[in-house]
């Protein structure tokens, strides 16, 4: 009888501890994002671990944007005046930068892969450039295959650059039907692209500093192709 009681106590204690672990590391609500100093420190660690950008330092955190309760976007500027961004995830009960780059060209960030309503366009570009507006594109190429005609899709979303040199916006609602229609991600029909235009509507090439650095590339990103006028209809 004593043994049985002891067993029950042990089993209860073990399962309580196990539940505690699972709760703490997986289920507990996310804590507050690190302050600017702590965020800069983590990003510096990431950028310099690569060895290629020795001595690169984050000068200022531009903003912290929470994508959902477990994901965040933090654009920054380095002491050399280069803009970049980092993506953060709440994992194992701490906020960690899942990637950081000093090449702030737009990418599609799949916050929750497979769920297009969570997809975002993120970017952080040099505001000194002579750019008037940014245009993001969803493109599906026209094709005639297996006797079936696939119309071209070309949808765009325009933003004034002066107000949005960096940002994290949800993929437009109208795009989601098409992304959702993707049967198989490995043979994606849909492409993403972007352009930077000056006030007269001409393409402006954003030079930036050309330094890029990625580390701990744990999040899902899709490249956005830089497009030019002759590639569009």
């Amino acid at each position, binding site marked *: 009888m004593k043994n049985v009681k002891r067993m029950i106590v042990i089993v209860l204690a073990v399962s309580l501890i196990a539940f505690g672990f699972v709760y703490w590391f997986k289920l507990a609500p996310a804590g507050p994002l690190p302050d600017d100093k702590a965020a800069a420190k983590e990003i510096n660690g990431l950028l310099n671990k690569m060895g290629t950008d020795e001595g690169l330092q984050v000068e200022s955190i531009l903003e912290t944007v929470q994508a959902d309760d477990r994901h965040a976007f933090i654009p920054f500027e380095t002491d050399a005046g280069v803009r970049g961004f980092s993506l953060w995830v709440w994992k194992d009960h701490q906020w960690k930068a899942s990637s950081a780059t000093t090449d702030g060209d737009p990418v599609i960030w799949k916050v929750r892969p497979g769920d297009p309503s969570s997809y975002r366009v993120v970017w952080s570009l040099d505001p000194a450039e002579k750019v008037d507006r940014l245009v993001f594109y969803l493109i599906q190429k026209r094709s005639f295959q297996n006797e079936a*005609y696939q*119309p071209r899709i070309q949808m765009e979303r325009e933003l004034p650059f002066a107000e949005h040199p960096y940002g994290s916006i949800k993929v437009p609602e109208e795009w989601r039907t098409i992304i959702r229609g993707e049967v198989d991600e490995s043979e994606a029909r849909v492409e993403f692209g972007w352009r930077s235009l000056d006030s007269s509507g001409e393409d402006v090439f954003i030079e930036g500093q050309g330094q890029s650095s990625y580390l701990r590339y744990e999040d899902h990103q899709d490249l956005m192709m830089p497009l030019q006028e002759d590639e569009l209809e």
Partner: protein
Amino acid sequence: MIRRQKHQAPFWKAFLVFMVGVFTISYTFEPRGIMVRIPILPLGVLILYLTLRRKNGRWERYRRFAWFGFAGNILLAIMALAAIPLSSIVYPSDDPATYLSNPEKVSLVQSHPAGSDVRLDHQKLHEQLKGMKQAQPDGEMWYMESMVEDENQSKAPERFPYLLNGVEPKWGSGLSPLIYVEGNGKGLLILSGDTQYYYQLSESIIKGGGAE
């Protein structure tokens, strides 16, 4: 008592034999999205025979359970085969209602700059959904006219610059169609899997913009 045990296989053993009997080498194919497995070789039955025959009378006692397992496969195959004509009755592949079960809920999205700022005429869509005429899609021509430019003709704009948003196919069909709307509002191009269907309408289902 001993004799009875010999003749009545215990339930769990019979069940085990049944489960092993289910193993088969079968030919699998998927007509119209329904998986059909035609059992060819009763692999489980064969294994059971080889292992059970060593002891006298054991195979004889258990073989019907082994064959029950195999027969289960055949039953499933017959049911799947029967579901094919049924599915074409419930989800006729050339009926637009199979792909668009909620015409009152969909909206129009401009998917190409060749379109203009128009709205969907729900009433016109609803009225014509039943009597739409299926037409021969001329994909090759549509492709060529928008891609190839020659001396006396410039590229035509995209023929289908709109998409229906929020399309729900018939419940249970498992389809995920994309429905494009022709620039003049008088044609629907339904793409579902590898097949396409083209329907022509007598009245335009779009209003506003420059379409009227």
